[in-house]
């Protein structure tokens, strides 16, 4: 929390089947390649099937597997509405990264929220919206929205000096994933630039 301890808490949220576990795996692999301590707490079993899922990623001087309420440094929602479901892990300093995508829950007569509804509810939070699914398509792997988001986090500086770029490029493995990572990284750099102007 303070002093010499360095901790990064990333909460990954979305819908079962969107690649959240893989996203956690890639980050864990990259941390390991950079000799950084990491814990990734996953949700398995029934919740995988179209249900709401979150994955807790804790990096640095960490021992406990779960992020405390109000202490996520980053919340990444591969499905935008899922950011709202996990809002209690955020504080006003948390960077909330939304994929520009809503997925209809498999529930009869469900009332959906739009991206705009989600953004409006998050007014007052530090929010970024990324076309991760679209960018993944363009990078040649429609399933790589998770990797676009990792690139975006990296571009924002989420991993501080704990994980180096080379570790990520190695951990994402495929060529299309490297492109997806770079695409995400690129727009994060651009948004940092805009923010500092």
């Amino acid at each position, binding site marked *: *929390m303070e002093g010499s*301890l360095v901790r990064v808490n990333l909460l990954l949220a979305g*819908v*079962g089947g969107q690649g959240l576990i893989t996203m*956690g*795996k890639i980050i*864990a*692999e990259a*941390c*390991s390649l950079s000799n950084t*301590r*990491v*814990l*990734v*707490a*996953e*949700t*398995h*079993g*029934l*919740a*995988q*099937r*179209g*249900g*709401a899922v979150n994955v807790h990623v804790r990096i640095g001087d*960490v*021992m*406990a*597997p*779960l*992020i*405390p*309420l*109000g202490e996520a440094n980053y919340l990444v929602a591969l499905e935008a*509405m*899922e950011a*709202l*479901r996990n*809002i*209690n892990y955020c504080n006003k300093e948390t960077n909330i990264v939304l994929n520009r995508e809503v997925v*209809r*829950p*498999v*529930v*009869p*007569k*469900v*009332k*959906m*929220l739009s991206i705009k509804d989600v953004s409006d*509810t998050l007014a007052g939070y530090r929010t970024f919206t990324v076309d991760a699914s679209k960018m993944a398509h363009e990078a040649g792997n*429609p399933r790589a929205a998770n990797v676009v988001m990792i690139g975006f986090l990296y571009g924002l500086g989420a991993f501080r000096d704990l994980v180096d770029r080379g570790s990520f490029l190695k951990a994402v493995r495929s060529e299309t994933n490297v492109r997806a990572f770079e695409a995400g990284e690129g727009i994060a750099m651009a948004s940092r630039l805009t923010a500092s102007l």
Partner: protein
Amino acid sequence: MKTSIKVVLGNEAIATGALAAGVSVAAAYPGTPSTEILESIAKYGKGVYTEWSSNEKVAFETAYGAAMVGARAMASMKHVGVNVASDSVSSSSYTGVEGSLVLVSADDPSMWSSQNEQDNRYFGLQYLIPVVEPYDPQSAHLLTLRSFQLSDSLKHPVMLRTNTRVSHVRAPVEILPPAEPVKGKLMKDPHRYVLAPENARRDRKEQLKRWERAKSMVEELNEIEGEGRTLVIASGIGYPYVKEALEDLHLRAAILKLSTPVPIPRRLILKALESADVVALVEELDPVVEMQLKSIMFEEDVRVKFFGKDLLGREGELTLDRTRRFLGKVFNVDVPEVPSLEVAVPPRPPAMCSGCPHRSSFIDLKKGLTSAGLGKSFISGDIGCYTLGVLPPFDSMDSGTDMGSSLGLANGVYRATGEVDVAVIGDSTFFHSGLSALANAVYNNLPVMVVVLDNRSTAMTGQQPSPSKEIDIAGVARSLGVEYVKVIDPFDTSNSVKVFTEAAKWVKTNNKPAVVVAKRACALDAMDNVEGKPPVALVELTKCTGCSICYDFFTCPAIIPREDKKALIDPDECIGCGACVPVCPFKAIRIEGDEPMGWREAWLG
């Protein structure tokens, strides 16, 4: 020894720990959060016999039998699986073993994927079996090895108790190399292993002697860290939470890191208590350590200020917030509550997959029951993906309590009301513990319609194989004496509805059980077994009236409403299974594209 660092799941760390210990026989029944243990042993173990047993009792007995003849053996299961295995777990503590026997119990505090959050450390107290409890993947790896060593030295079973936040946490782990599997050799000792009263009485004395040895042998698995007049005893997963919470709150305390919650290390605890004025105990779920600790303190006349379950609570998993608040009260430090926001978000429960045969089965069943005049019947369900039948739009499950319970509960409901009811059970659950209940239904003449949802696998835990691949359920039902047995394809809606109607009427008329087997493969499994691009369903917008039946009453995840309420099929989500085609009353859905190689075989083989 040469170790390697790999990023693994806690369960893989347990599996590789077992391999490092020389396990030679490993058996399990799948169940979250335990499943990946056996999967990993099967994947990485060379010369190790592994099997998915038909239930946890058989899995445990497989390991127990192997350990009787000197092998190093392990059985792994979720916490409620130990209930099923408990009869033989109890016996194993009486007889002890020649080799080593480790039972892995994967508990699920907060019930992420289970019907309860029972604390299986109680089994240790009840059956006099030492319980070893890790707190992260690395400790799980090492403590698995230590559990085998403990069992080997004691000649007694040992329980390794993990939980969701150990088993399903991924982290870099330093992994020991596998050892040569230690097999058994045929040996006999009936005076020990046949628990006839005379033998059992002798075994009981031996069991108590081993338990005394266990009490002293567990001492070395626990340690004291740091110093202070406050002693925090942290059991299992409590340890990392305590470490971080103390750091966060800048507090100093002596920590007793407990890896054996049963039995607790008496000597070490007394040593730690010598310099303590205040004792705070952090353990998840029930006061298992607390009861033993208080008993020791009473016996030794130790009087200290004590904080435990009264302040920490016993419900749900531990969190850092909860541990901080607890330690805040112990140290009289203010820990502010994090304000909680209420934000309206649409519910998102788990759902049956696109192409799931259960969806069609439930819709067909509902129609069949209604047309047979049994639309209000009690539907006794069971444990599997199909438990989702409780959710709307199906609303087709009135109970679902534990593995194999559907038939027994249906029996009770009928005996108490005289109303014909329905039992819905999956194929893997049928072989797990439904068989004996079906025999009972025949033997005691239960008028029940049994629906076996045979998707050819143990789907919920990740499509492990099920005995249904080898054993024909309809044949089993006939040979048990069920007179009405029919097999349907749930996608063949009109025939399925007809058979469900007929079966329900037959039960009412004949006052005997009928069995309908709804046979079609799990969609995830089927898609793994086809080569090439599957076909896709399309909506003809000129025919679609926007009636909403397909997305609100059938609820395939691939079908979504457009702005004008007409249906749209998401081509990325659709697998072209065709289940929705007969659902549309306006014939507006058609399938386009050719069936890839192996398509029919994958679904119906």
